[in-house]
């Protein structure tokens, strides 16, 4: 695919080539579009070649015959169904949580601004680049068996067993993912809120509209595209999240990425790992397509987001 694309591209550049002393349009500044070949080759070797091998290993049995037997075998296991169930539950719950928390925090930052609100909104980009497992590690200090909440509760009510144990269920994973991925919702939201004319809101409230009515009728409709973009990005990221699930290490809470790691690294079962990876990649590409098409749709509406 790469070769044909770059071939036709270099053809179009040749057609556009003209003498250098004429005022040239920007499309003819490069010597040739053949420049795309080296970076494409690098990506081909380190990204597409491994990707094709994963697909290949998932469809070919060890005897080299094409079959779906490996899929049937992996899909039939309770381990897979458990991982798929947890992946879907965690993805959907965490995304819903990110949308709710992101919307609430963004509304306050944008429409009920407090001193320092600008600094907070600028810190969001920084949060996005921090490693995700940082939050999981912090949660073990706060909500873990020997964490500060359990310590406080045990000494206050003289209990012998730690009363708070949600961290070691899928709820711990979901809460950690909401923390980590909410900034991804807030970024497009704050961008779209900055496009709302503040006068519109002030007029509405001077005409007697109460805050909740303005929220419902002005702010939330304007935020809808940004919520969709942020939400689909959250679906993609939470499906593939690995660090948080690994760090919390809750018994029985296994997601697809964690199961792939277990199969490949703990059990050296590469063919099962490849089947699982193919399924995970398909899911991930689906969410990515959703995200990109939301962005494209936003772009057409002229909202300069993300």
């Amino acid at each position, binding site marked *: 695919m790469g070769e044909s694309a770059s071939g036709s591209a270099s053809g179009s550049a040749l057609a556009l080539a003209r003498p250098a002393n004429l005022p040239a349009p*920007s499309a003819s*500044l490069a010597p040739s579009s053949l420049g795309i070949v080296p970076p494409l080759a690098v990506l081909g070797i380190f990204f597409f070649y491994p990707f094709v091998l994963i697909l290949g290993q998932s469809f070919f049995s060890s005897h080299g015959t094409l079959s779906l037997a490996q899929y049937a075998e992996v899909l039939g296991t309770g381990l897979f169904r458990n991982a798929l169930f947890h992946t879907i539950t965690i993805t959907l719950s965490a995304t819903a949580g990110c949308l709710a928390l992101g919307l*609430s925090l963004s509304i306050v930052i944008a429409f*009920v601004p407090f001193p320092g609100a600008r600094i907070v909104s600028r810190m969001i980009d920084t949060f996005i680049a*921090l*490693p995700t497992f940082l939050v999981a590690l912090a949660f073990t200090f706060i909500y873990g068996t020997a964490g500060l909440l359990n310590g406080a509760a045990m000494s206050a009510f003289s209990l012998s067993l730690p009363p708070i144990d949600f961290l070691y269920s899928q709820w711990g994973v979901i809460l950690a993912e909401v923390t980590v991925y909410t900034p991804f919702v807030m970024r497009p939201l704050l961008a779209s809120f900055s496009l709302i004319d*503040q006068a519109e809101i002030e007029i509405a409230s001077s005409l007697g509209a109460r805050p909740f009515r303005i*929220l419902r009728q002005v702010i939330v409709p304007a935020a809808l595209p940004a919520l969709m973009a942020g939400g689909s990005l959250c679906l993609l990221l939470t499906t593939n999240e690995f660090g948080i699930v690994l760090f919390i290490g809750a018994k029985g809470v296994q997601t697809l*990425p964690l199961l792939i790691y277990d199969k490949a690294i703990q059990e050296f079962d590469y063919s099962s790992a490849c089947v699982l990876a193919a399924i995970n990649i398909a899911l*991930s590409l689906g969410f990515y397509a959703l995200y990109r098409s939301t962005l494209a749709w936003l772009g057409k509406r002229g909202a300069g987001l993300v």
Partner: protein
Amino acid sequence: MLVWSKRGRAGAWLVFGILAGVVYGLPAAVILCASLARSWNGVLPSGLTLGHYAQAVSGSSGAALEASLITGVVASALAVLNGTAAALALRRMEGMPRRVLDAVFFLPSAMPSVSIGLGLLVAFSRPPILLNGTIAIVFAAHFVLISAFTFGAITAGLARLSPDYEQVAASLGARPIYRLRRVTLPLVLPYLIAAFSLSFALSMGELGATVMVYPPGWVTMPVQIFGLSDRGDVFHAAALTILLAASTLAALASVSLVPARSAAR
């Protein structure tokens, strides 16, 4: 202003403060406290010590710090090189080929990191290219994972660049290579530095692909932190996490300095 009554505003801020404090402030504070605490048995940590930081920069953690820094620099440099080449070439294209290739270079960001690690493991444990067990496979994993973000940052920078300078240079007879070296690259340098910093920050925190491919002797910080916290050595893990977060933040802070300087020029 959405809420006009003083009481309503105070209420909104209170809710915001509690939410942001519990969700973001508390975790950050807790890790910072733990990294400095001698022990933590009750509600509050007890005893102040820098011992965990001393541990975190020596021995196996010191080696992890070094491995992460080297991996981050090498992978980011490769990603900037490759991303710049791709973005410059794509700038010349239009229509369908450009859209398709754009999508191709963004595709790695749509992939689960663990699957990227698995793919590299499967692909480079067999001829013709054998990289399994070497440091190079870690570089490759980090390169692939950050490449889309690097490419995106550079493409965004190039898009802001007015073609006028290059067209003037071209009309004055500057050859393409000379033009690239003396006009285009100096103009996009701030964006290249920003792309490098972002890539470095992402590489420092990478875990999913690294645990799949890392050879013994090249343990990066996230892998080391996981190992420590898995063994229950949580204070040491907290100190190393603070160092990791600090280096990520330092890399990102350098980004915010660069555009200001280029604007002043």
